[in-house]
């Protein structure tokens, strides 16, 4: 029980409050990856995320100038991570219990971790009827049978604010997020000890992520595909595929999405979520399987658990495809960005 303690203040680049610095250096510079880490740690809950760029309305008055947002921002002093990262084991697997995007291994990992008692609750991203993202807290594996929870959504979600509440509520938390989110969580864990309660960080293979309204309008006007009656979105072989209720599929080449890619994603080179405990993605495995890159012991133990319980069937992954995509991402997202 300390009655006297100290905390560090990051140095300022401009003579403003800290959010001013963040705004100048990250948001206005177009580096912000919209991971909402700053929104999650802001003590006055002033920073807003959601389906819009990160902002702090009248921060000049309300910001208490604590610098927490800067401590956790993954794009402050940005040096991009890239490549496959180090891993213990790579495999391709398909869950036998759950139906997911491909192999539903994200769901499988979370369910197994919950069953093992490694984590008490997990933060998942569900979607509503027109594919807006919605945060759900998973406490029991039964909740994961909901088809709206599994499956990929290609738009931003405020995972980390929900993650902070979960951290304050329970001892061991897991979450699923894009590489930038995983990186942000690692920075949070360095800065604030409490976030070490995040026991399981499942990273997703990620090329880009979109604002929901952008994606919606884009699909509507490009392919006249209304997301409201879509049942599945996916990226396969450079094509963005939207599967409709009536079974029809809309294919759009990923290159056309250039105009709506947020600027933050254009400087991101991390495809395989190198900081995560385990990264999962469809790339590099046969159809209906997901590639699983186990990076830490925790994830390894979960994988063992899955093996012994025989929850999933396994396969040899094609790692070079993943490698190719990593390089491709580095190619299309150069750092520093050439003007």
């Amino acid at each position: 029980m300390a009655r006297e303690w100290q905390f560090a203040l990051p140095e300022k680049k401009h003579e403003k409050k800290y959010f001013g610095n963040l705004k100048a250096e990250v948001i206005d510079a177009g580096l912000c990856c919209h991971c909402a880490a700053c929104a999650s740690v802001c003590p006055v809950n002033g920073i807003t995320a959601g389906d819009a760029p990160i902002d702090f309305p009248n921060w000049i008055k309300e910001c208490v100038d604590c610098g927490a947002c800067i401590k956790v921002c993954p794009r402050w002093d940005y040096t991009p991570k890239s490549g496959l990262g180090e891993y213990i084991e790579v495999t391709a697997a398909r869950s036998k219990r759950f139906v997911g995007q491909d192999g539903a291994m994200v769901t499988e990992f979370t369910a197994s971790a919950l069953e093992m008692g490694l984590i008490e609750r997990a933060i998942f991203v569900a979607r509503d009827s027109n594919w807006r993202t919605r945060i759900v807290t998973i406490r029991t594996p039964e909740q994961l049978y909901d088809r709206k929870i599994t499956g990929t959504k290609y738009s931003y979600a405020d995972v980390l604010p929900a993650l902070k509440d979960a951290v304050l509520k329970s001892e061991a938390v897991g979450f699923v997020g894009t590489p930038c989110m995983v990186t942000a969580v690692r920075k949070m864990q360095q800065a604030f000890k409490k976030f070490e309660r995040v026991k399981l960080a499942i990273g997703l293979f990620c090329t880009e992520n979109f604002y929901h309204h952008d994606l919606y309008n884009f699909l509507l006007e490009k392919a006249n595909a209304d997301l409201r009656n879509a049942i599945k979105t996916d990226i396969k072989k450079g094509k963005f595929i939207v599967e409709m209720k009536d079974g029809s599929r809309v294919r759009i080449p990923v290159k056309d999405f250039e105009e709506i890619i947020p600027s933050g994603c254009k400087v991101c080179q991390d495809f395989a979520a190198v900081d995560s405990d385990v990264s999962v993605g469809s790339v590099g495995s046969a159809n209906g399987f997901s590639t699983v890159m186990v990076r830490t012991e925790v994830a390894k133990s979960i994988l063992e658990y899955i093996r012994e319980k025989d929850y999933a069937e396994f396969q040899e992954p094609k790692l070079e495809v993943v490698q190719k995509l990593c390089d491709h991402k580095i190619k299309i997202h150069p750092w520093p960005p050439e003007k």
Partner: protein
Amino acid sequence: MIRLSKVKTDPVENLKRHAEAIGEAVKQAIKPDRITVEYPRERRRYPECFRGFIVFDKEKCISCFRCAQICPANAIQMEYFDKAYPGIDYAKCIFCHFCVDSCPTGALNTSKVHDVAFKSMDEMRLSARQITRVPEIVREEKQTVEYYVDRNVWKLVRRRELDRLEVPPKPVKVRERKAACTEPESCLGCRLCANVCPQNAIKVEKCEVSIGEEVTGTGCVLQIQTDLCTGCGLCVRQCPMQILTLEEVGE
């Protein structure tokens, strides 16, 4: 189990019942056992635990907002003079005395006053200064009444003395508690605790953060001055990372 059934209503029974009823009425008319309390002229003696108007002791108050937060009717709003003190809106108060029971130092106490007349709704909102004493009321009564019951007696005993409306404050075992930080490593550094502290017991001063020898940057030192801290727990409720607690000290 008691089995009841239809009562008989033959004339003989009815005559008996008529006679009983009339006899009872005549008995009461001759020798009434009257239980009316003629209120303004005589006042009932209420026990010490009576939930009346609330009396506030400014010295004991540590402005911990507990009374304001527990109030089911939102009748208490805190007012800032040198510290934050509770003011009670008697237009809303339901006299549940949750606030009195919540007060950790016994600064709020009950009284036997239950009949105060207000001229307007604005008057009913009493400030902390006004509730520091028992509200003065016009006492017309000459005597105090109390119900005396016995195995076969039930009467009003009237004493020709006035009842004291102040209740001696009940002692509360004050638990000496101070704020402390459980997990300094995860302090955001927002200093909201320092801002909210009514005693300004949390001191913040710039310093240099150093790991080993080399100075890594500037920082702040937060210090809770235990002599000033009253253990109100406002900082505990305010902390966004929930790393502050109240811990018992002393005895």
